[in-house]
């Protein structure tokens, strides 16, 4: 029987990790923040929960092992949602930037104003930097010209998304 405390412990675990994340980000913003976010929200909790399961083989804690698994699964789902939410917080979503502009103006906004807000250069630069930081692409010099190439991890992710769209029967997204 699943009790309400399983959901509460799941929320509590997430809240504790979120507070740690908040403190770390307030003190210093890590260079590879997406990597650290994954370590903080997924890998460290996974290790802790696995250790808890091993230590609790003889049911020493007030929670049984199946309950610990259920708490971790709930926590894991919250963690995954947050790791998807964070990149949107960190770098402005162009779509939300348009929405926010229209919402604040409360009147019609000309396309020139939207274009002005939103020149492609600051958008692209930020994204290229973040792709380099998480080591999905790198810049190399070929005949004095800089070229973008995929790292092995980049090739892996590009293929995964390519295959995923094929399974769905869709062409690649418009970006």
């Amino acid at each position, binding site marked *: 029987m699943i009790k309400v405390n399983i959901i509460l412990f799941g929320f509590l675990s997430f809240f504790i990790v979120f507070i740690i994340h908040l403190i770390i980000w307030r003190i210093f913003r890590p260079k590879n923040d997406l990597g650290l976010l994954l370590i903080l929200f997924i890998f460290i909790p996974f290790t802790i929960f696995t250790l808890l399961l091993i230590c609790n083989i003889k049911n020493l804690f007030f929670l049984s092992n199946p309950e610990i698994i259920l708490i971790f699964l709930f926590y894991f789902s919250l963690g995954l949602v947050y790791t998807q939410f964070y990149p949107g917080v960190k770098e402005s979503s162009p779509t939300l930037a348009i929405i926010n502009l229209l919402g604040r103006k409360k009147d019609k906004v000309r396309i020139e104003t939207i274009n002005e807000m939103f020149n492609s250069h600051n958008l692209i630069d930020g994204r290229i930097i973040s792709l380099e930081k998480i080591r999905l692409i790198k810049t190399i010099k070929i005949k004095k010209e800089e070229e973008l190439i995929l790292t092995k991890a980049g090739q892996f992710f*590009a293929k995964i998304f390519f295959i995923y769209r094929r399974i769905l029967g869709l062409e690649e997204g418009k970006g």
Partner: protein
Amino acid sequence: MHFIWLSLFIFLSPLIILFFHSLFVRIFHYFKRNTPQMKIALFSVIFTNIPVLIISLIILNFDFKNIFSYIYVLLTFNLLGYFYFSIFSLSESSIRIKTIILIMKNKIKNINELKQYYSKNSTEIRLERLTKWRQIGKVGNDSYILKKYFLFFLSKIFIFFRFLLGLNNSINDKYL
């Protein structure tokens, strides 16, 4: 023992969403419906709640005594469903994912070619998409107006979290 099966089932439930999603994409395509792909993805996640609930009932031997078991299943499944939806929207509208796919296909070689690609498309694609979703409306030939406030509210949440984490960003700071 059935909790182990239940955990395993919930953990793998995004695969069920993938199955129904690929089915719905093909059905909508067959009937030539011009429905936005994001809507089909969202519909698939919401629809998959039904088979997930039915399979959970079977795993839990139709035990209706503890309603929390089902609340737990639906809550966890929908969190994973949101994760699935985010992954799909990445594949549909993320500049980063589009960039790595463009590099993989040798369609762009450097940052200038990428900027050129997006200077033509970026704003237009987004305005077209938002109009199609009926979040914004076109007024005359060259102006837009906000029609629904859900995404505006969402953008406020993003601003709040950025403030909480002490983040700053050039576009956001100026415009959000």
